[in-house]
């Protein structure tokens, strides 16, 4: 008995040493070209699905049927995900096919995962595969937009996919070629970038008609440049905007800001009915709530009877969903921006969810450009 135990002990000690010697000898292949053994593949996939299921327990998906979310997700997918996971018309991109493990074409496997699991994989990535985590861990709203898109992905044919993702060449609007041409001739460096901006914000900065995208048209060039700079530096975290502007220089950012600042904001959508919500929002925005120590929004963001700081955004006519999401981000303390953004960190946490909605509804009901500059 004792002898047997000593043998087991010796083997237990020898195994790791043997393993180290094998690794040190360099005979173990790490080449992706060779693939895994079938049992390795099975074990890895089994571990992954178990891990994702366990770790995503308790994640509650928000409503995912908003078409604006789907559009946001579609463009982001086409920019960041399609190069590996493919898209209708190019289901198996050649380079990605040589990855190990091979990235699946998602419409065929989406049904295997719950929305909470897709959220977990998209936000955190998967170890030992090429799957990266979302570029920031502070933007669950963007990750949910991706999940919203993934839910619809299997139903999309190629033209529909191209329309949602606004693939260049598929014209998002009639004005697009003209704008690109103008910008291209003015400053060649920013034209390809603008081609990307257009996919969500439109050439005119009006946001393709979905209220998840801010109205950039008519916003001050200073504020837009500060925001782009904040996205680039990471001060304003975003897994969508961050990667898009990461490679730009200050001159590009300035040109883009200028381009959108010069656009005309146009008419606003008629306000949605909401039981005196607009009136409540107006009171908060123009007078503040001294008893709750909520400052009056309008002194910085208009409408006001005095000049506004161009580093502060004008909120009149901004879409309601966008305003709500930004206030929620400020409230949770992760929203950055220019050097004045911290002013909001003392205000937003005092607003309740209802007050945020009231204020957002009020500002979205104002004609754009109603401020004073």
């Amino acid at each position, binding site marked *: 008995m004792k002898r047997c135990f000593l043998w087991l002990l010796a083997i237990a000690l020898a195994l790791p040493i043997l393993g180290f010697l094998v690794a040190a000898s360099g005979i173990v292949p790490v080449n992706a070209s060779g693939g895994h053994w079938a049992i390795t593949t099975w074990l890895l996939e089994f571990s992954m699905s178990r891990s994702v299921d366990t770790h995503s327990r308790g994640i509650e998906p928000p409503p995912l049927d908003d078409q604006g979310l789907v559009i946001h997700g579609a463009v982001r997918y086409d920019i960041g995900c399609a190069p590996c996971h493919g898209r209708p018309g190019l289901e198996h991109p050649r380079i990605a096919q040589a990855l190990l493990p091979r990235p699946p074409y998602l419409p065929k496997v989406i049904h295997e995962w719950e929305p909470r699991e897709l959220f977990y994989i998209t936000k955190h990535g998967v170890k030992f595969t090429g799957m990266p985590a979302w570029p920031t861990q502070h933007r669950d709203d963007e990750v949910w937009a991706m999940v919203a898109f993934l839910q619809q992905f299997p139903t999309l044919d190629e033209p529909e996919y191209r329309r949602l993702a606004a693939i260049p060449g598929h014209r998002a609007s009639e004005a697009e070629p003209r704008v690109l041409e103008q910008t291209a001739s003015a400053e060649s460096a920013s034209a390809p970038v603008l081609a990307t901006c257009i996919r969500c914000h439109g050439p005119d900065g009006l946001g393709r008609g979905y209220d998840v995208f801010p109205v950039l048209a008519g916003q001050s060039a200073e504020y837009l440049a500060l925001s782009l700079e904040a996205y680039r530096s990471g001060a304003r975290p975003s897994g969508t905007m961050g990667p898009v502007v990461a490679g730009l220089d200050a001159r590009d950012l300035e040109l883009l800001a200028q381009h959108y600042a010069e656009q005309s904001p146009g008419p606003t959508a008629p306000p949605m009915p909401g039981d005196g919500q607009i009136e409540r929002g107006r009171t908060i925005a123009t*007078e*503040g*709530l*001294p*008893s709750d*120590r*909520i*400052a*009056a*929004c*309008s*002194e*910085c963001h208009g409408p*006001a009877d*005095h*000049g*506004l*700081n161009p580093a*502060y955004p004008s909120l009149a006519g901004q879409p309601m969903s966008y305003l709500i999401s930004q206030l929620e981000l400020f409230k949770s303390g992760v929203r950055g921006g220019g*050097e*004045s953004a*911290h*002013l909001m*960190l*003392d205000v937003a946490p005092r607003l309740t969810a209802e007050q945020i909605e009231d204020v957002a509804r009020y500002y979205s009901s104002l004609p754009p450009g109603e401020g004073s500059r």
Partner: protein
Amino acid sequence: MLNLITYFYSAPFVPGILLADVWHGKHSALEPAGTAASEIATLFWAMAVGAAVIWLSMIVLGVYCFRTHQGMHPPRLPWFIIGGGMAVPSVVLAVLLGFGLSAMPRLVGPAPEGSLRVHVTGEQWWWRVSYEHPQGLDTQRVELANEIHLPVDRAVEFVLDSADVIHSFWIPSLAGKVDTFPGRETRLVVTPTSEGVYQGICAEFCGGAHAWMEFTVVVESPEAFDAWLAEQATPSNTLHDEGATRGRTLFRQQGCGACHSIRGNVARSRVGPDLTHVGSRHSIAAGRLPNDRLSLVRWLRDPKGLKPEALMPSFAMLSDEDLESLAAYLHGLK
């Protein structure tokens, strides 16, 4: 090491130093300048004398006991037990109780009809002060912050409440302290008896910057008081200086009016302190800094560093020139 030794040898003097500070500081309950404070000071001295008498008798008795030998006493001294153990303490306590109770009606009695009424709200961490309009128009209160002026020899009724947590309103030289509660009014009547500048404090721990929740009380002649109140009731003054004009534009452009009010069509929010005549006050940020341009710049640049958890956000992103213009404007609001 030397410091430690110095500290060690000076330790016996510390209570004396502290007491001297209490005696002659900006706020001293032992230098009364109001009727209520006098009552309290008298009560204090009566208690102190009573306590001293009892303390001295105990010492004398103790010394006497150690110096006498057994058998020197007669076997029983009932008068000593009854008198010293029961009668004397009862009489001393009864006298002190009677004396203390007799001061109560004068301390908590209502203010005479027609007295000046001042509303004070404790907020984390400053005092919102508003005077009922001299003509009695309730809608037109004269609001300011962290500074109270009072006419000498006249009863004033303070109506106190709180916007958040429990604070305690205390002007040691003029009267006793009274707690302020959210959602409930408490009252305090003060009759100052000598002119001067006194300090008020919050006497109930109320959070991060509790220690920086002071206010100034100026007691002056009725004529000077009337002139002051009339001045405070006016809108902010017109500007002549270029820096101040620039500061006024900046004040509005930077959105200061989202929280502050400056009467005279500049700003009208009631979230933070009214700044209409901020330049006329003795200090800024509830006693945290003296009222001068340099301090105003310091405050604008780093309010949370000077006063932890203060709601005022930092404006360090502004240029020195901008901050100086803002300071010039605010300091000029006399």
